[in-house]
């Protein structure tokens, strides 16, 4: 027994002139049902976020609702003026946003921001509002609600802030909840908790939920119905079961295929190969503050970290934020100095050399960075970006350029990219350029620091394939750092799991996934969204 809460029919949202397409959302129709979760899935630029904003009347001024209707409670929401919206927002339809840090006013206490919900609609006395705020925080599982109520946003963790946002959204018991990628910015374990929270609350209050996401794993976990968007159009919709197991549209099929599975392919062991990298006892503590009258704060990012990488293998370094994996990457590259420990590349101890010797040895270990938009100097042409390194090591400019041509072809880019600037390329293409730059010096090892995390899932799959291909062809070894276990499963031979600065488990991929030993590893694995074993009551 379910009633339709919201009906969206033929919605067309027009973008201003000069945008890369005419409509953000082009003729989209779907329903939200009370007591059910609808997942709107799409890659970046699909228009899914615009749909969410249209439902709240929060479209940017430049975007106009040209046609269609959004029916809620007998009204077409598109015809509402600002006063009409004031009564609805927060009270009948509420929204949770993606970035909990920026979505909360940094100067107001959490309790006050929740109490504002009541104040906006003239409900309850100030004292009652405060009490309700505490009980709401308790309901969403924030520890010590009486104290949390008086906290400022920066004093809470990401997951706690998101819980507070959810408490705010639910305060007035709305009929509809719009969640715009609420867990994308969270750690995988926190994400699992928040997803469960949303599911439980939705069920107990019989809300209709519209959940925007790009992650099919999340869809598998919580969706009752699914809508797939591409370039502003609905390419497929149906019950979760139908869309996930029997996708009709080629785009849906391609998206589902691109999602990395948690089953690692079988790989030969490389432990008999020579060691390419030997890391022993790395330690690094970050100290901030200090001086008179001030306590120093120290964070230990790496504690006695040791591992080896053998010729031809990909070692994965997996962990959540704060685990120290990025610090290890930087320590291995000697971008930061370790407090203790050594990094050996074959015979050379990278931590003991400096100056010119260090610069010369650097070509043996190269890095692919995370952010495709920050890893290329916007003022240098792509050709120069790739040839700068080799020329610095003494290669003739003409030879370097020829090599750059070759490399661009290897990573699947046209040679005329040499004369163009980074801003003319897409995220995935920029990552390829970054890979070409790393390969230009003929390194023995490649360190990929979350190299695919910022990419759409279909592009991600392409880049991962490229890395695998290059690795085999050029005989590279790789240190692959990621927070996403699914990606690690696809590409790594062995995986090291990090928690709070130490490696808690280091095993071959298949063994790690099928029989994890350390409790944290088990926790991580259980939290990965999209596993068929997770329950999802209809």
């Amino acid at each position, binding site marked *: 027994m379910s009633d339709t809460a919201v009906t969206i029919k033929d919605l067309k949202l027009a973008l201003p002139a000069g945008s890369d397409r005419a409509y953000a959302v082009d003729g989209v129709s779907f329903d939200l049902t009370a007591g059910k979760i609808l997942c709107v899935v799409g890659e970046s630029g699909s228009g899914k976020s615009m749909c969410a904003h249209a439902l709240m009347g929060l479209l940017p001024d430049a975007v106009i609702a040209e046609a269609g209707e959004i029916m809620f409670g007998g009204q077409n929401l598109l015809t509402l003026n600002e006063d009409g919206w004031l009564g609805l927002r*927060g009270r009948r339809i509420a929204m949770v946003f993606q970035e909990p840090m920026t979505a909360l*006013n940094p100067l107001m206490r959490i309790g006050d921001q929740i109490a504002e919900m009541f104040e*906006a609609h003239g409900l309850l006395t100030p004292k009652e509002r405060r009490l309700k705020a505490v009980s709401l925080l308790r309901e969403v599982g924030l520890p010590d609600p009486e104290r949390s109520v008086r906290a400022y946003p920066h004093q809470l963790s990401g997951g706690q802030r998101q819980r507070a946002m959810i408490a705010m959204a639910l305060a007035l018991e709305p009929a509809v909840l719009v969640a715009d990628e609420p867990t994308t910015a969270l750690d995988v374990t926190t994400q699992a908790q928040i997803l469960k929270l949303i599911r439980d609350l939705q069920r107990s209050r019989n809300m209709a939920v519209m959940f925007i996401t790009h992650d099919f794993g999340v869809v598998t976990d919580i969706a009752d119905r699914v809508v797939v968007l591409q370039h502003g159009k609905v390419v497929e919709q149906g019950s979760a079961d139908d869309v996930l197991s029997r996708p009709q549209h080629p785009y849906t099929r391609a998206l589902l295929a691109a999602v990395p599975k948690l089953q690692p392919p079988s790989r030969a062991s490389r432990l008999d190969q020579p060691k390419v990298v030997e890391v022993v006892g790395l330690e690094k503590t970050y100290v901030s*503050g200090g001086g008179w009258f*001030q306590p120093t704060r120290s964070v230990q990012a790496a504690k006695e970290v040791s591992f080896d990488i053998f010729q031809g293998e990909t070692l994965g370094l997996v962990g959540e934020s704060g685990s120290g994996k990025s610090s290890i990457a930087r320590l291995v590259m000697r971008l930061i100095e370790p407090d203790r420990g050594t990094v050996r590349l074959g015979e050379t101890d990278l931590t003991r050399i400096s100056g010119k010797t260090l610069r010369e040895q650097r070509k043996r270990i190269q890095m692919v960075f995370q952010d495709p938009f920050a890893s290329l100097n916007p003022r240098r042409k792509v050709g120069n970006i790739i040839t700068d390194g080799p020329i610095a090591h003494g290669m003739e400019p003409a030879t370097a350029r020829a090599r750059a041509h070759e490399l661009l072809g290897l990573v699947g880019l046209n040679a005329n990219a040499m004369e163009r600037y980074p801003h003319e390329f897409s995220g995935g293409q920029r990552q390829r350029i970054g890979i070409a730059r790393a390969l230009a010096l003929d390194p023995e090892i490649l360190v990929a620091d979350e190299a695919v995390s910022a990419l759409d899932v279909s592009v991600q799959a392409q880049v991962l394939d490229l890395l695998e291909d290059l690795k085999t062809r050029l005989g590279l070894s790789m240190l692959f750092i990621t927070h996403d276990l699914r990606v690690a499963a696809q590409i790594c031979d062995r995986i090291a799991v990090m928690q709070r600065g130490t490696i808690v488990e280091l095993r071959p991929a298949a063994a790690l996934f099928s029989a994890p030993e350390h409790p944290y590893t088990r926790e991580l694995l259980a939290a990965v969204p999209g596993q068929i074993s997770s329950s999802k009551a209809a």
Partner: protein
Amino acid sequence: MLAFIAQRIGKAVIVLLAIVVLNFFLIRMAPGDPALVMAGEAGAGDQIFLTQLREKFGLDQPLPVQLFLYVKGIVSFDLGFSFRQQMPVSKLIMDRLPATLLLTGTAFAISLAFGVLFGTLAARRAGSWTDTAITVLALIFYATPLFWVALMAILLFSVALDWLPSFGYETVGANYTGLTHVLDVGAHLIMPATTIGLFFMATYARMTRASMLEVKRLDFVKTARAKGLRDAVIQRRHVLRNALLPVVTLAGLQAGTLVGGAVLTETVFAWPGIGRLMYEALLQRDYNLLLGVFVVCSAMVLAFNLITDLIYRSVDPRIEFAA
């Protein structure tokens, strides 16, 4: 928090000491005999005074000794003696300091209040004629030299319209008391304070406008709208509060310019403050007095910076009192 204040005062004292040392070297950088420089144009003729100076500051002794004697003097609030005005420098300064504090305090209050007001108005009506008018006026006042505005104000309000008195602190010889006195000082205060105020009004208006437009685009404003809050409440509670933080920082940074503005304005309006004292010292080539005023001006700026810093830290919960 007390530890923080103590730390900042400690730092300020060090900076003041550094300024005093700077003064010491500046005197020696002036051409000629340091004793003549310190005596000023008037005192240079008086041999007895010169001998006293030489003795007091040990001018025939090695440099480190001189430095020590000089600093010792300053620390005991002895800023020297102005031969021309025949008074200790510190007394001269203390006599005139309240007038400057009144002027700069009023100017600051006016500029901040109206600056924020106009900036907010311009931001609320961004793109409209009101906005353009405010922005253009702000640009013009920001570009106008202070001394010229002062003169134009006198030309308009004293010479042409005869509404306001053109110089001084109070009507000379009238000996008003009580409320009449306050009103009299007020009438003399309006033009100088507004003159300084206009420049800073322009600065704060532009900063407030830019800041509000920037904050308006932030995510938490969207959250506030999603709650169904009315626009007026959102502007006041969410946008303005956050937008004012950089304005407070700016106000702190402007302290030095405020003091500089006081020098020019007091000169034009013959306002009896330390700014005008500095001008007199310039005319009389009384370097001792000049440097004495300079030290006090620096102390004022340091005090002002400390206050604004404390205000900023108490308003923004993200910044702790350590650091």
